[in-house]
């Protein structure tokens, strides 16, 4: 089962290697991994999406990661607890008469065109993984030359200012474990 972990880690050389190693040595493929600095100085927040972890083993990885010296906090991201988003960049080369349709798609999908060159266009969008899957499908007729997906990033809904309904925009309940 696809499982998403969000970890707060020390921003230091080798920390990703330490995390990834816990999955690698159990022969688990990491589908996506994002990491960048966060609101806390010296720390980074990382989102790890791993494949084929039995539901009964999901907590195990939380504890295994917590045992790492450079890992400060780990959450198992669930549908109800987190908002999960993904960024897509697509370089496309549509036939000239279809360029207008691309613009329409951008509008419809809340995406935008970052570059509108004579030989190619660069399209950007963000959303849930499911929305991005659909978008990539929609882009296919426009001749995708290069596709880059950021992998998922997740943020927990909990926090003092959270007045929103438990389900965020564009989110479906089975999104995370899909």
């Amino acid at each position: 089962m696809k499982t998403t972990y969000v970890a707060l880690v020390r921003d230091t050389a080798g920390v990703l290697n330490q995390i990834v190693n816990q999955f690698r040595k159990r022969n688990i493929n990491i589908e996506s991994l994002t990491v960048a600095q966060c609101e806390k100085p010296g720390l980074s927040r990382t989102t790890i999406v791993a494949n084929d972890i039995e539901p009964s083993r999901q907590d195990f990885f939380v504890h295994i990661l917590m045992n790492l010296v450079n890992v400060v906090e780990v959450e198992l991201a669930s549908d109800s607890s987190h908002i999960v988003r993904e960024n897509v960049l697509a370089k496309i080369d549509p036939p000239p008469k279809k360029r207008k349709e691309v613009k329409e798609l951008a509008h419809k999908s809340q995406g935008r065109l970052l570059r509108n060159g004579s030989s190619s266009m660069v399209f950007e969008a963000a959303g849930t993984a499911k929305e991005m899957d659909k978008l990539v499908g929609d882009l296919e007729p426009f001749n995708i030359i290069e596709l880059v997906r950021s992998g998922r990033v997740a943020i927990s809904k909990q926090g003092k200012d959270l007045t929103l309904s438990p389900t965020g925009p564009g989110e479906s309940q089975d999104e995370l474990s899909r």
Partner: protein
Amino acid sequence: MTEKKTRITGAEIIWECLIKEGVDVIFGYPGGAILPAYDALTKYDDRIHHVLVRHEQGATHMADGYARASGKVGVAMATSGPGATNMVTGLATAMMDSSPIVCITGQVPLSVMGTDAFQETDVTGITLSVTKHSFLVTDVKELAQTIHDAFRIARSGRPGPVVIDIPKCVQNEAVSFNYSNPPADLSVHVVDGAVTEEQIRLAADLINTAEKPVILAGHGVLLSEAMTGLKQLAEQGSIPVSTTLLGIGGFPSSHPLNMGMMGMHGNAHANNAIQDADLLIACGMRFDDRVTGKLKTYSPHSKKIHIDIDRSEFNKVVPVDVAIHGDLKQVLWQLTPEVTSRNRGPWFKQIKKWQASIDEVEILNQTSDEFMAAHAIRIIWEETGGNALVVSDVGQHQMLEAQYYEHNKPRTLITSGGLGTMGFALPAGIGASFAVKNKDVWVIVGDGGIQMTLMELATVVQENVNIKIAIINNGYLGMVRQWQEMFYNARYSETPIYSPDYVRLAEAYRLPGYRVFNKDDARKTLNEVQRLDGPVLIEFVVEQHDMVYPMVPTGANLHDMIRRPNGGQEKNKGRVIEKRPAK
């Protein structure tokens, strides 16, 4: 506070910090990338004793043996490249058995790192999977803090090995060093337990309503120093105790509630009790496959309480009903007062019945004048009054030691359990002997295992280490032979093993050597060598064909044990190794 700042080199900082951490002995081997540290040692060797090993693997096992015997952190040192890679087996051994050691390795200078420089290896990368943590120190200003952190990580929570890789240029660099200001206790986080009253109540309820409970005592009992707490819990609730291999000594062997070791070569009545129990109370143990047998049928009717300092152990292999994350000693303090005393007559009667059935096939009760490994070990137990600190290697003799040497005190058995590292015993015994000055240290090792690290005999002599080395020579890689006999139709592929003349070998190393062929000789010789101060080597030439019973084959149900045949073991199925010592 007076600030006393002096400029000293990274190399000197290493020794300053080790002394601050209370280190007075270190096991190591010099080389190019660690030369600055060794040079600086000349200023500190009145406060730290350096033991020159013969192989860096030995240094790690010595640090490990020292740690297990003393409860303190053991320290080893090596150069970069081959020195560091030689440490990997020792690190993995310490990792598997939660032993706190710190290994300091030299590294090539930062200026050439990553260029395949002479004797460069990616030490932090290589050791990633076999350490609790590995540090690469790139700034001499961080060295003191790193060393402090390394010790803290090694001994905190679930202990384990830590590597500090220090480039030569960092050792050479001078920096102002503040003697009076010890590093802060936290640039690393340490996992502490969080025990709730609710968990204690749930556990106590399970214990108080159980008819057939069993306590499973693991290495955590020793690591947490929870021996007294364990005894109180067992006595308070009238609960029989079985230990893992590494849990031996955590509960007195002579205690009427002790059923002895569990698992693959555990006591039949202990295994039967575990299988039949309605409650298991797992204390600082991790349900290793060598103690559970087939998981599907493992203790099928029992509820399970698991107390451990490492949360990742809960439900890892055996699902548990109540998991208590915390320091065992403290958890037991909280738990035991909630446990009501119970009469468990029928349960003990049943266990007695199982026990009677093992006595029938007990090798010590069989009348034969054959000299078996079990006899040799029993005689060592008798002659040492059960008071030695025993360091056993890996194989049949290791299991026989666990069965026939009774340990009443903690930290009197040191052995490589999780990794099963042959060659561990001699160096670990050397290390242990630096931790216990008032105890006899006995190394019990097979003819296979001794040949893996026998170069350390030179270390024994150079350091005049007071250890007694008992080589159980059965002419075979006995434990593998046993599997071949049982599961590979007695095809003894590559298990007969030739040994040197150990008595002459001892002589070559200039240490007293003895060879014994029978029980009477063994007793006489042991009596004699015990009076000798300093190292001694004794070879016990024993029968080749004996096996360790009972045995739960891998993947079999824990209760389906192969038992010792009542008429004794069939003889000489295999090729007899030529050039065995002649009587």
